[in-house]
C-alpha cells in the first residue's frame, strides 16, 4: 500500500490550446489533463492512477477569464473558483454560480481550483478513492453497496452497480443554469448541454463525463435566458468549508406576476450526475411559490428515492432543500 508519494511522470506545459490538443491526441489514454490539480494530485500521490504524462493547462491564457457574449456568459475552463465567486458580472447576473463557487472546498483551494476541474472531477466515493478494485476502477464489485458498506454519502437515485454521487457543486449549478460545455479535440469543437455532459454508471461506469481521451473542456457558456433569474443555492455538508455536499440544491426561477413562469432545478450528491428535477419543474411551473407548493415540490422530488443502509436521511434533506428553493422565491 502506498500513500502520499508521487511516482515520476512526464510533464507537458503547453502554452496554447492547439498544442494541448495535439498532445492530448498523441498521448491518448497515457495522457492526463490537469488544471488546478485538486482532483489529480491525490490520485497520483496514492499511486492509484498512474498516467505516463500530464498535460498541464495552467499556461494557456485563452482558457481563462469571464466574458459576456450576445448569448450570455462564457467562462473559460481554467478560470479559478475565486475569480467566479468575486466576478461582478457573475454576481450581478448569475449569482447562482457565485453562490455555488463560494461553497466549494476552502478559500485556499478555490484560489487554485478551476471551473473545468470542478466540473470534470472524479467520484469521491471513499472506497474508490482508497484505491480498491471496484466496478468504477475496472473491477467486478461495489464495496459501498453492501449490507455493512459505509454509504452515508452515496446515492438515492440511479444506482447501477456503482452508487457514487456527483461531487461537483459547479455541476449542480451548471445543470440548473442550462449551461453548455464547450469541448474541443483535434478534430473540432462540440457544444454539449450540461445535463448530457455528466453521465452515470449505466452509461459508462469508469467516467463521470462524456469526455474521452483527446478531449479538453475549454469553456462553459451560460445562456442569457437565465441571467438575473431568481436563484437559490444551498449545500448541506458536515462542515462549513472543505467538505463535499451531503445534498445540494440549485435552482433558477423566472417569476411573472408572482407566478413561476420558468424554472430549472438540480440536486447534487443524490445521483452520479447532478439530478435535474424535471417533474418538480413541471409541477411548479405556473404556480405561486407558496408553502403548499413547496411541500408538493419536496414530495415530488424524492419520489422513487432508494436509500442505502446509511443514507436515508438524504430523503428528508433533499425534500427540505427543494422546499427551501421554492420558499425562497416567495
Amino acid at each position, binding site marked *: *500500500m*502506498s*500513500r*502520499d*508519494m*508521487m*511516482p*515520476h511522470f512526464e510533464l507537458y506545459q503547453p502554452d496554447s490550446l492547439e498544442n494541448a490538443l495535439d498532445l492530448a491526441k498523441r498521448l491518448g489514454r497515457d495522457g492526463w489533463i490537469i488544471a488546478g490539480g485538486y482532483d489529480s494530485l*491525490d490520485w497520483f*500521490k*496514492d*499511486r492509484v492512477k498512474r498516467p505516463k504524462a500530464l498535460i498541464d493547462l495552467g499556461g494557456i491564457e485563452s482558457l481563462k477569464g469571464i466574458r459576456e457574449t450576445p448569448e450570455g456568459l462564457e467562462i473559460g475552463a481554467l478560470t479559478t473558483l475565486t475569480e467566479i465567486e468575486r466576478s461582478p458580472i457573475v454576481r450581478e447576473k448569475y449569482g447562482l454560480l457565485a453562490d455555488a463557487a463560494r461553497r466549494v472546498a*476552502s478559500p485556499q483551494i478555490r484560489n487554485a481550483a478551476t471551473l473545468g476541474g470542478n466540473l470534470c472531477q472524479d467520484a469521491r466515493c*471513499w*472506497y474508490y478513492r*482508497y484505491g*480498491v478494485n471496484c466496478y468504477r476502477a475496472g473491477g467486478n464489485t461495489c*464495496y459501498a453497496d*453492501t449490507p*455493512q*458498506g*459505509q*454509504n*452515508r*454519502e452515496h446515492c438515492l437515485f440511479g444506482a447501477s452497480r456503482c452508487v457514487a454521487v456527483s461531487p461537483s457543486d459547479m455541476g449542480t449549478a451548471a445543470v440548473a443554469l442550462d449551461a453548455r460545455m464547450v469541448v474541443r479535440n483535434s478534430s473540432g469543437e462540440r457544444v454539449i448541454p450540461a445535463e448530457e455532459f455528466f453521465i452515470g454508471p449505466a452509461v459508462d461506469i469508469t467516467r463521470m463525463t462524456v469526455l474521452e481521451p483527446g478531449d479538453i473542456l475549454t469553456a462553459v457558456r451560460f445562456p442569457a435566458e437565465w441571467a438575473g433569474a431568481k436563484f437559490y443555492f*444551498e449545500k*448541506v*455538508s*458536515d*462542515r*462549513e*468549508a*472543505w*467538505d463535499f455536499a*451531503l445534498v445540494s440544491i440549485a435552482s433558477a426561477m423566472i417569476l411573472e406576476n408572482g407566478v413561476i413562469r420558468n424554472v430549472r432545478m438540480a440536486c447534487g450528491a443524490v445521483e452520479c450526475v447532478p439530478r435535474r428535477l424535471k417533474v418538480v419543474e413541471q409541477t411548479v411551473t405556473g404556480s405561486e411559490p407558496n408553502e403548499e407548493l413547496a411541500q408538493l415540490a419536496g414530495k415530488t422530488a424524492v419520489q422513487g428515492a432508494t436509500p442505502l*443502509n*446509511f*443514507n*436515508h*436521511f*438524504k430523503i*428528508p*434533506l433533499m425534500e*427540505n*432543500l427543494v*422546499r*427551501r428553493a421554492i420558499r425562497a422565491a416567495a
Partner: protein
Amino acid sequence: MAYKHIGKDFTPHDVVAKVTGQAKYAEDFRAEGMVFCRLLLSPMPHGRVRNIDASEALKMEGVLGILTADDVPAIPAPNAPILTKEPMFVGEPILAVAAVDETTAQDAIEKIKVDIEPLPFTIDPLQSLFPGGPNARSDGNVGNVGIELQTLKWTAADFARAGEGKLPMGKAVEEWSYGDLDAAFAKAKIVYDETFVTASNSHHSMEPRSCMAYWQNGKCFVHASLQSHTYTIPQIAQYLGIDPQDVVLIAEYCGGGFGSKGSAYPSMAIPALMSKKLGRPVMMRISRAEEYFIGSARNGFQGRIRIGFGADGKVLGVDLFIVQDNAANNGFWDFRGAGEAVSLVYTPTAMRFRAVPVYTNLPSRTAQRGPGQNQMACIVEPLLDRAARELGIDRVEIRLRNAPVTGSPVGGERRPVTSAYVREALEKGAARFNWREKLRENGKRDGSKVIGVAVGQAYHPAGFFGFDGLVRITPDGKLHIHTGVGNLGTFSHSATARIAAEVLKVDWENCIVERGDSRRHLPWNIGQFGSNTSYTMSRTNYVAAMDALTKLKEIAARELGGSPDDYDVDGSRVFQKSNPSRGLGYGEAAQRAIDLGGRYSGHELPQDIHPITRASASALAGTGLIGVAKDTLPGGATAAFAVAFAKVEVDLETGQHRILEFLTVGDCGRVIHPMGLATQLKGGSVQGFGLACLEHIVYDPQNGLPANVGLYQAKPPTYLDVPAEMQWDAVDKPDPTSPLGTKGIGEPPMGAAAAALLCAISQALGGHVFNRTPVLPDMIINVAAGRSQSHKPLQVHTQ
C-alpha cells in the same frame, strides 16, 4: 500579594520563531550524507507475514537498505512494535526501505513481494467478546496497562440478557465501587439506564511524526516531533537498545500532539535503527495519510450508564460499564478516566465502575485531550439536562447541587482533590453569560431554526509531583531556567519557568529558558501531557529557585558576614536587609559559587535527584550558581475543571448548527499567563466542537479499511465551523498545594465545550438525547423528521 510575573502576559520566545517560520521542526533538519526512508504498510487488518522478497528492490539504483521486524528490538506485547510480522491493522508498518530520495524508496517498496496470510479480524469490541468471535491479536483480545493480556469471551446468555440495542454486561476485568448502590437507586426519583457509543477520533496533529536520526561518537542524535522531552529519553533508549545517556534528543518545536506525542512512539526508532545499519543519517517524513495509520486516535467506548437522581436533582447512584476499543495495542486507559470523572464531577453517593478494554484491528490509540473524561462529559451532561427538565430544576442549578468542592473524593480510592472551584466557575459563567436571560431564548423557533441554550462541564487531573528542577545563575547575572518538560505548543514551558523568575525576582529579559535539546542539559521532568505542566513544573521550578535563593544568601553571608537570614534579593542583587548597600550582584554571587565549588557550583548534588538531572547538573557544574532540587513538597490528587455556556442555532431541515455565543470558564488555580490560558480555553473548545459534532473514525467492518485518511475526510472543525468570537474567563483561585497556587487546565475545556454544544442541540430538539458522539447533521435530520437512525445503538466506526 503583587507578583512580578504571575498573572501577567509575556511573549514566549518560541512564538516569534513559529510565526516567522524560523522554527525548525523535525523534518527541517539536514545532516551530511542524509538519506530518506519510506514504510511498507500492511494492506490488510490482520495477518501473518510469511515471506518478504526484497531482492528486486535492493537491486535498484539508489536503494540503500531495508529494515524489517528481524532487524529491530522486539517490544513486549501488547505494546506497539517498531516493525511487525503480524500486522494488526491496515497501515501498520511491516518494513522500511532507505534510498537516496523518497520516490526511489517508494518505487522500491512497490517491487517488494510480501506474502501475508490473512487472519481473523474485527473492528467491534463486542464482536470479539461474543463466544467464538474473532480476536484482534493472536495472543488475546482483552488487556491494557495493568490488566493482563488475556482471552475473554462473554456468554451467549450475557448478550441475550441485554436485549436489542442494550450493552451486554458480562465479566469485567476492572471494577471498583463505593457506597450502597441498591439503596441509592431505591431512593432515586428518576433512574435512567442508557447505552451509549462515543466514537474514536484522530489527533490531527498538523505536524506528522517525522523523524531524523544519525549516530556520532557512540551517541544517537534524534530530531523528533514530541510534546515531551526528558521523559521520552529512557523510552527512546529502550527502543534503540542503548543507554539513556547516549540519546541526544532535539525536539524544540512540536506541531501539535494533543496527547499523541506525549511519550516516545515506536516509529521514531526506525530512522535511528536504519541509520545504524547504513552508517548514514536517515530522515523519515511521515505523510498526512500515514499519520492516520501510525499516528493515533482517542479510544472509543461502547458503554452503559445507570444513573439515579433524587427529587432535588442530586445524583444518588451511578452504575457505569465501559467496553473500551483499545485498537490493536494497549492504547490508553481512557476507561479509568471515565470512571473517575463521573465519580468526581457528579459526586454520586454510591457508584460502581466496571470496564473491559478490548483489542480491535485498528491503528494504535493514545491519550487524546481528556482521555475518558471528555467522552463522559459528552454522554452524562445531556442526561443531567434530561433529569433537570423532568424534575423542573434549572440546568445550572442541578450542576451546582452536584458540584465537587475542595476535598471531594475521586475514583474508587476516594482520594480527596486538592482544590475544586466548579461552583465558582458555574456562578461566574452564568453571570457573565446572562444565563437566566438567555434561557428565555431557549427553544425559540424561527422558521426551521431553533435556538438551544446550554451549559456543559468537564474535568481532568491537573498535575503531578516528584520531579526535578534545575536553574543556574551565570557570572553575567542571567538566570537560566532548564526545563525538560517539552513543547506541546501551550507556552507553559516558559510560563512555568517564570515561577523561578518570580522567586528570584529576576526581570524576564534576564532569564533564559533552556529547553528543547539534550545538549542544553535538562532536568528529569514528566512529559507535557495530562494538563500537568502548570502544576508539576511550577513546583520543580519553585524548589530549584528556592535552592538558588538559599545559596545566594549563604554566599552573601560568607562574603559579607552575618547569617543567610539577614539577606534578601531584589532580582539582580543579594543584599543585607539592614544595610541594602552591602550586597553582591547575582553575577558576582555566581562567580563566588564557581569559586566555592561543592554544592554551590553543582559539583556536589542532592542524593534524591534523577540520574538524568544528575547528568545535566554535572555537565553544568562550574558554570555558575546551580539551583537543583527534587520536588518533595506536599501534593495530592489535583483537579482542573472547565464549564462552558453556548447559544446554538439548529436548522431542523438541514441538521446543521451554528454556535452563536460561547463562553468558557476555567478552574485552573491561580492564572500564570492569561494569554496562554486563553489559547488553551479557546483552542480546547474548538477541539471540543469537533469531538461533539464532527470527528470520528470510519471503518468498513467487512475489510477493515479506513474511510478517513485525510483532513477533508476526517473533518476537524474549520474556521467557519466555530464562532468568530469566543469568550473566556477563569476562577483564578489558588490551589493550596501548589507553591504559587497554579494548576493545569489543558483538557477540560474540550469536554466542557463539547458537552455544552451537545446539550444545546439537545435543547433545540426538545430534549432529545442521542447517547452517541459525534452528533452529525444526518442524525439531527432523522430526529427532526421523525425517522430512525441509520446506525444501530451499539454500532461503531460508522459514517
